[in-house]
């Protein structure tokens, strides 16, 4: 499979995830029902919310206020992945109309959003790599990418690209833990969670403070969230050694992790049901007297309680043993938490968050493999989100056809399942964000005026 870059991007260019693309079949012969370029063209013609994306990406600079930076939107990088894996980087536009016509013309299978640069990306070759007159990212949302395939060692229902309702709670956990921390610990407010279209979620933190973070600061925030360290080959990947858990971890545990582990995953994943599976858990407990006793109990064939699920019974026994103080080992209680953390705590792709120049898929794109739209997820009701019920391209077009084609895009949206998502996007995210941008712009403009006045006074 060849991959032609029409623009020569820098070698270290990154787009979401560093995973290799799976080979795709040649277009034209076996076209999947859920996704093809004709459907996509129609989608871009009728449904894709261009003006909402433009308003968002302008962060208030598209207004008439004298404090507006008219160059702002034009310095944002977009990238398009076309049919046949042709990849166009450093696309930029000066208006919503330009953005719309370019997308409708090129019909990209994927649209990525990059940073805002110091100058229009189209003019980058005129600028140096270092020194004063430089082409460099100046603003970029703080972003997170959580991918279900990173949890393959702790989910038994699916693996790889597959996702189902049994393992989806892991994404729910990730959203709750990270969202709460972003708001309560870091004080961020304008946060957008988006379904990635297949097996994960993306997070966009859009506060001004967040957009101006340096790479180093992004890295330290990503590290703040990191607990899981390891790969398939290490036995224990979560190590919570200190006597007390950091308040962030403790809160995550009591408010989210413990609950979802005991009420959902323990059962749906049959975490302790077979010898192979419980041995994996026992490997996480370095105390031999404990593991020997548990193994003894579990190797018995008959179940003492038929009504209770075997996973629940065994988990209770394990907790009892580690928390009762019967065995003399130090810090045995901590192993219960480590097991829960291993199975539930969010696993972020660190590289995505650390670099300002990392590209991330735009919301409301359609995923080529599934045909599903990348819709926003409300963190306050994320436990109700069903990835298998997300609108697909063909479904949306069906809905449009049923009603007959009218002119107004607003009407079109409302007649489809996408309408709900767009309304949520506008009311819960875009409007509060733009309001805040306007306020910031006004206050900083007024401050500047005041400063000028002060410096001119005798």
């Amino acid at each position: 499979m060849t991959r032609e870059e029409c623009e020569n991007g820098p070698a270290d260019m990154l787009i979401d995830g560093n995973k290799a693309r799976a080979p795709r079949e040649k277009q034209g012969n076996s076209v999947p029902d859920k996704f093809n370029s004709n459907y996509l063209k129609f989608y871009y013609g009728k449904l894709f919310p261009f003006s909402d994306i433009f308003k968002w990406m302008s962060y208030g600079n598209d207004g008439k206020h004298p404090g507006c930076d008219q160059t702002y939107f034009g310095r944002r990088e977009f990238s398009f992945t076309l049919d046949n894996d042709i990849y166009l980087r450093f696309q930029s536009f000066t208006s919503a109309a330009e953005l719309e016509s370019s997308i409708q013309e090129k019909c990209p299978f994927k649209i990525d959003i990059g940073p805002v640069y110091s100058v229009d990306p189209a003019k980058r070759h005129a600028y140096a790599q270092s020194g004063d007159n430089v082409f460099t990212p100046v603003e970029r949302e703080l972003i997170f990418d959580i991918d279900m395939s990173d949890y393959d060692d702790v989910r038994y229902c699916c693996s790889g690209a597959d996702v189902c309702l049994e393992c989806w709670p892991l994404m729910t956990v990730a959203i709750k833990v990270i969202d709460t921390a972003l708001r309560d610990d870091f004080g961020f407010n304008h946060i957008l969670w988006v379904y990635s279209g297949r097996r994960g979620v993306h997070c966009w933190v859009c506060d001004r403070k967040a957009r101006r973070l340096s790479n180093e600061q992004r890295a330290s925030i990503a590290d703040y969230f990191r607990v899981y360290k390891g790969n398939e080959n290490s036995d224990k990947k979560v190590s919570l050694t200190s006597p007390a858990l950091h308040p962030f971890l403790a809160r995550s545990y009591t408010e989210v992790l413990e609950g979802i582990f005991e009420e959902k995953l323990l059962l749906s994943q049959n975490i302790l049901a077979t010898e192979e599976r419980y041995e994996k858990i026992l490997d996480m407990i370095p105390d031999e007297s404990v593991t020997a006793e548990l193994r003894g109990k579990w190797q018995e064939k008959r179940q003492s309680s038929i009504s209770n699920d075997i996973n629940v019974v065994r988990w209770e026994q394990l907790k009892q043993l580690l928390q009762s103080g019967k065995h003399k080992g130090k810090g045995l209680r901590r192993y219960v938490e480590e097991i829960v953390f291993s199975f539930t705590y969010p696993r972020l792709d660190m590289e995505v968050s650390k670099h300002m120049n990392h590209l991330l898929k735009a919301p409301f794109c359609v995923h080529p493999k599934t045909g599903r739209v990348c819709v926003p997820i409300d963190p306050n009701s994320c436990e109700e989100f069903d990835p298998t019920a997300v609108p697909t391209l063909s479904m949306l077009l069906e809905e449009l056809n049923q009603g007959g084609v009218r002119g107004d895009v607003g009407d079109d949206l409302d007649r489809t399942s996408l309408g709900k998502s767009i309304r949520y996007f506008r009311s819960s995210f875009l409007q509060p964000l733009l309001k805040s941008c306007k306020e910031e712009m006004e206050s900083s403009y007024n401050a500047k005026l005041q400063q000028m006045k002060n410096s001119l006074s005798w």
Partner: protein
Amino acid sequence: MQPLRSHHQNDAIPALPLYRSAPPLEVRLEDFELYAIDRLRVLKAMSDGLSRGKNPEEMEKLVKGLLWANMRHPQASEDVNKDIISHFVLRLVYCRTEDLRKWFLSMETALFRYRFLLLTSNDHRRAVMAEFNLPYKAVSNAEYEGVKDKLGQVARSIGQPPPTEVPELVANRKVYIHKGYAYVAMNQVVSLVVTQFRSHLSKALILTNRKWTSTIREQEKDRLTPIVEALSTSYLGPDYSQPRESAEISIKDLDQIAKSSFPLCMRHLFEKLREDHHLKHGGRMQLGLFLKGVGLKLDDALAFWRAEFSQKDYTPFSCQKIISSTPGVGDNHGCPFRHFRFNFILN
């Protein structure tokens, strides 16, 4: 920029300047050199201490002693000026190559760190933070009560700068953060302050180097430049070159003294010589001059070396020189702590 002044006359530690800008002070030419030498002694002794593996507590004590011994001026009020002047002179000396800059940055940062730790009052520490524009505010008692439990889980806290100023502490979850503010323990403040210091000095050294190469070196070629160029290569340890009458050892004592009193590098050379009846040139120089330095009489030495010892009058190698020499295959000289594998030294 005013350096901090100590309120207590009896404080052994001088106030803590931040060296933001060269002060408009007049210096006598001889003080220009002497102050720098005194400071260099402090830095080199620190470097020594660190390479010998002293722990932070020991280093703090060492620094305190070094400052007392070297950086005081007959007029106590002049201490601060000596501090500042010596720093800026050494900047000129050590800005000139990458290696020099690296060493100087490392030592000055370490010195700053220990001096900050030695500050006895929180007021002084807070004043330093303010100088670095670390936006923080003290936590009121009421607020403290509200978050006390959380802090108990992490650490005691007094300062409250926003987390984006404390990347390392946030990354390792060593601070409690809330609504964009990190509650930083005063002892964690050190890492904040030291990072800022290092970053400022690093940039300043680059700028100094530019100025040096473009104007200063030429302008000062008859006055300061020779001093500056001589300073980076000066030897500051004890003077072993004067022959001393008192200490003497005789050839029959050698084996016993080697085991009990020789430094490890010399003992190794001695034992190798006894074992192989041979040493390569570097080893012969190192051991031979050492034996001379500890008082082995010439007759005994000659007898010892069996006519391999040269009459030329070299100065015995300093630790610095030995540490920096690179033994090749078959050589036995050099500093064992630098070149030998860890197990060897433990045995």
